[in-house]
């Protein structure tokens, strides 16, 4: 379970989160939607300690993490894997070295088995010849994104956080990534929190969705409830969908 309570965050004079209250259940695929600058990614980054809240509280499985130090966040980061908007693969390292970053402590054989499993989970296992020896710029953007997802899966986090995972991808790849998110969540029993602009895929993938505006939740519900919602921000999103 993830819980934000009255979370506030400003950058200079700009208030991004204005008392965010949100609860995400264990095992569900949860989408956070909203226009740019409404604080979706900012909220996500608080969960892994990349940002510190001005006030408010955050819980992960009954553990209050709001005031954790950098050191205290290490076990939390093992629990919560974050997939960034950009693939964020280390350019100077080959794919194998990128994949093992989070599992360096494991024996080689175990690493190999885990990598095999992760690549299969993201559908990359037989797609690229000599995948391990190649470097990130040598594969397509979509493949880099999938590799980044595999890297995040490898330490076996209980919670997967996706920060706009389909940005820069073509519609077909977007659908594939969303299916992947759903599949991983169901097959591996993981909680998935996805920040997105993509209402169409969100409705098809999510168990529940929240719509954010000005750093607050303005709408929350299952895809069916969201489709029937009269909240102006949600209605505007749905209107875009029809267009």
């Amino acid at each position, binding site marked *: 379970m993830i819980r934000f309570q009255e979370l506030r965050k400003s950058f200079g004079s700009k208030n991004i989160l204005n008392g965010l209250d949100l609860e995400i259940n264990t095992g569900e695929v949860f989408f956070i939607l909203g226009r740019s600058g409404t604080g979706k990614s900012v909220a996500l980054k608080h969960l892994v300690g990349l940002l510190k809240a001005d006030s408010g509280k955050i819980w992960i499985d009954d553990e209050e993490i709001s005031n954790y130090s950098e050191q205290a966040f*290490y076990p939390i980061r093992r629990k919560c894997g*974050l997939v960034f908007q*950009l693939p964020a*693969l280390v*350019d100077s390292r080959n794919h194998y070295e990128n994949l093992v*970053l989070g599992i360096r402590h494991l024996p080689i054989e175990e690493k190999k088995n885990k990598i095999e499993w992760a690549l299969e989970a993201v559908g990359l296992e037989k797609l690229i010849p000599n995948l391990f020896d190649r470097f990130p710029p040598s594969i397509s953007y979509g493949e880099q994104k999938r590799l980044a997802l595999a*890297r995040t899966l490898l330490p076996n986090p209980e919670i997967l956080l996706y920060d706009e995972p389909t940005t820069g991808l073509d519609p077909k790849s977007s659908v594939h990534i969303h299916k992947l998110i759903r599949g991983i969540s169901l097959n591996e029993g993981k909680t998935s929190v996805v920040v997105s602009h993509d209402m169409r895929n969100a409705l098809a993938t999510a168990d529940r969705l929240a719509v954010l505006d000005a750093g607050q939740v303005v709408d929350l519900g299952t895809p069916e409830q969201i489709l029937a919602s009269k909240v102006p921000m949600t209605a505007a999103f749905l209107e875009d969908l029809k267009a």
Partner: protein
Amino acid sequence: MKLALKNFKEHFLFFMELVKRLPQLFVERREFLLQFADIGFRSLSTTITAGLFTGAILALQFHLQLKDFGAESLLGGLNTSGTIREVGPILIAFMLAGKVGAFTSAELGTMKVTDQIQAVRCLGLDPISFFVVPRFWAVALNAVLLLIFGLVVSVLGGMIAVWVTAGIHPSQYLLMIERFASGPSLVLAVSKSIVFGFLMGHICCANGYWTEGGTQGVGEAVKKTAVQSMVAIVLADFFVTHLVTLAFFIGGMV
């Protein structure tokens, strides 16, 4: 002044972080060796060019002055002393700061703005140990070795320049080197190489790691590295010269 002090404090604290993480160099030894080889290989041509021409230019200038007094026999000694004590370290350090320093800042800055550093952090690794420590030591140690190598090349450059342009034979040129460029000159040259090398390594890594705000931020980091490196090298040059001379003066060697 307040801003300068704040900057200095931030740099000092970052340097302490790097020193504190020295044992991590063993963990990241592969990255260190790769960076060390890469930086060394990439900077060799710059060092040779800078060294050769620094020595050559100074030799031609000294030759113009000395020949009026019929003191050309002193050329090798004076030129070598002047080059390795002062002009050589500073010019070669400027060139290395422009090449290695700027490259490392841009590399780390790009890693920062493309979330590579944050991603590594999220995978439970310490980004300073993982990215910065191997680069800092690779740049610093390379810069020290390249500066010393560049100074040796600068002696060669001076010797070739006066042989070709003024017909002074290398044996005549080398004859006076030992007399003019002895202990204090060598200690000064090596001290400056060490200080400049570590300054360069620190400044480029700190600015690269602190990059904020997209590609513009990367440009800003590279600019800061270039400016801060040059200012720091000039200031350090003054203090190292003063301290080493003072040490030899106290020791009765100058």
